[in-house]
């Protein structure tokens, strides 16, 4: 079993959705992290500025005022530490919070130019921290370079990032689930006509329905129409087969009954009479079988029949019949143009033209002409200079389709089969007098 259309669509769309939203999530996550980091740097910078503001310079003795700008700097082990160093590494000040915390090693080397900030991630006691250093030339009794350093634990930031992530992925997952559900419903709704069609075809199969319903979406209208035509064609063929079988059985009954009665009839005692009766009835049965077989073997108009070039078909038959009727010296000329095409089953068309040409070869004296008319209708015309077809035979041929048990031997069975075939193709067969007073057969094909 191949993967269903619904599963394919859902699988593909879910995959695209998940990948797309994962990429979006990743981008959002990255930019949120960047903004958190930027915010941290800004905070530390402000802290540095406020530290600078609280420096007390008592004639060269530099100290930070006791009123530290940030209460966390006063709490031991608070996660926020600050220190002011001189250019030789001497400590001018360090925050009370850093008591017992040797954070100097986590700081950048003292090689900053005055006025420069350096922001970095560092590690302190095994945990990630942000560190900001700033250098300035302090103009006092004598100028000294001071290094302001602030170190902050990343834990609060990490917490806010984790919270953001949680809600981000939760939200995205909800979006994916919603979309997949919507897709599922859309696909189901979109494919419903196909399911309906499958059900209706099953009903056709079981005979509970004759044709498909009419209201299919535009994409399926063509398919439904073709399916309907196919089914109708099948039904017609079936009907034709059944009718041919019935006709055959029915039309064989008469000669069989005649034979059976003949066996009982005491007046038919003489072998010559019996022989004649037998002969007549066997002839009749032969003709019937030939005719009904011809009718039943027809394919009929095909739904997507490709156009059959009639000129090539005529040439092929003329070559074959020319061999068979070689000694008659018949001049058969085809003027059928190469672009004369009839849409249908090639074998059917071969039967039509073959039977007509065979009749022409059989009855003509010396010449046969085949030509075609393209406008206003496709017409194939076969003329000969034979004795022509008498109106009574012609009447017989035309009525044969409706009264199959009335087939009489030797009355142009080929022509009857052709008439039947042409009728199947919704065409029309007429017999006229040819210019040489022989037969002229017109086969009009429907457009």
């Amino acid at each position, binding site marked *: 079993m191949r993967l269903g259309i619904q599963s394919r669509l859902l699988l593909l769309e879910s995959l695209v959705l998940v990948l797309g939203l994962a990429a979006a999530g990743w981008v959002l996550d990255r930019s949120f992290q960047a903004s958190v980091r930027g915010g941290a740097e800004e905070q530390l910078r402000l802290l540095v500025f406020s530290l600078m503001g609280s420096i007390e310079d008592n004639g060269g003795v530099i100290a930070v005022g006791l009123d530290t700008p940030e209460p966390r700097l006063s709490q031991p082990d608070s996660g926020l530490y600050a220190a002011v160093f001189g250019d030789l590494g001497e400590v001018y000040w360090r925050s009370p919070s850093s008591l017992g915390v040797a954070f100097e090693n986590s700081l950048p080397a003292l090689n900053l130019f005055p006025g420069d900030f350096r922001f970095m991630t560092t590690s302190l006691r095994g945990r990630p921290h942000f560190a900001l250093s700033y250098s300035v030339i302090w103009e006092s009794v004598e100028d000294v370079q001071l290094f302001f350093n602030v170190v902050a634990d990343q834990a609060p930031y990490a917490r806010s990032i984790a919270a953001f992530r949680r809600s981000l992925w939760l939200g995205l997952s909800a979006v994916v689930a919603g979309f997949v559900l919507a897709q599922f419903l859309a696909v189901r709704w979109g494919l419903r006509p196909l399911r309906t069609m499958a059900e209706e075809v099953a009903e056709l199969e079981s005979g509970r329905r004759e044709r498909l319903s009419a209201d299919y979406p535009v994409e399926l209208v063509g398919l439904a129409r073709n399916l309907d035509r196919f089914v109708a064609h099948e039904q017609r063929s079936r009907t034709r087969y059944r009718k041919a079988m019935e006709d055959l059985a029915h039309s064989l009954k008469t000669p069989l009954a005649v034979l059976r009665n003949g066996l009982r009839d005491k007046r038919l005692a003489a072998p010559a009479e019996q022989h004649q009766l037998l002969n007549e009835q066997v002839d009749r049965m032969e003709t019937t079988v030939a005719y009904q077989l011809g009718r039943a073997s027809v394919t009929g108009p095909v739904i997507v029949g490709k156009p059959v070039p009639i000129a090539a078909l005529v040439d*092929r038959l003329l070559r*074959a019949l020319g061999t*068979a009727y*070689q*000694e008659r010296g018949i001049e058969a000329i085809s003027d059928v143009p190469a672009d004369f095409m009839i849409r249908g089953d090639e*074998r059917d068309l071969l*039967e039509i033209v*073959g039977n007509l040409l065979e009749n022409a070869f059989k009855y003509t004296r010396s010449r046969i002409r085949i030509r075609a008319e393209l406008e206003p209708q496709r017409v194939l015309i076969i003329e000969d200079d034979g004795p022509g077809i008498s109106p009574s035979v012609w009447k017989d041929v035309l009525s044969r389709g409706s009264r199959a048990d009335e087939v009489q031997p030797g009355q142009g069975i080929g022509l009857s089969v052709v008439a039947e075939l042409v009728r199947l193709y919704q065409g029309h067969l007429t017999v006229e007098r040819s210019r040489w007073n022989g037969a002229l057969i017109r086969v009009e094909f429907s457009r």
Partner: protein
Amino acid sequence: MRVLVVEDELNLNEQLVNELKGQGYAVDAATDGEEGLYFGREYDYDIAIIDLGLPKIDGIDLITRLRSEQRQFPVLVLTARGHWEDKVQGLEAGADDYLTKPFQMEELLARLNALVRRAAGYAAPQIRQGDLLLDTGTKEVRVSDVAVELTAYEYKVLEYLMLNPGRVISKTELTDHLYDQDFDRDSNVIEVFVGRLRKKLAPLNPIRTVRGQGYRLNREEAPVDE
């Protein structure tokens, strides 16, 4: 005339063989394509009747193969289904005529006759050599418009010679084409037939003896010079 019949339907095969023998043909019968091919390769026939639906090698294939091996005798195909596709394919493969089953035996015999004549280059059933006229349809012979009574074998000898005018025909070839079984080839039966024929055809003398080789029917009746 020697005929090859290839037909797998045993009843029909037998009927054909009986009918043809009754008409004075020498007949070989095969019931499948393989056997038909064997006969067609081994012996020379005046005509073959081949059914299209054969086991082992089908009819169209059989004709194609015989033709590709330069077996040029005329072929009449029999078709049961009567579809034009079959008939046309048969003729395209190299058959010379077709007949749809069921057929009348008279029709078959007429077609056979016509095909044999056609192969010999005659269009009409009457073959004329000067004042000698042979009607292959009615099997009558006339000399200067006077009917001549011939026995079946005398007729067959004359017909075979007239269908192969101008060609030297050995006694063996005549025996092969006239008799169903191998007769004693050393017998002078043929010579006897030819001798009686000459007497009956007098004053014409169309049959010439080619010493050590056989007989030849002259294309045009030559004046009596013996």
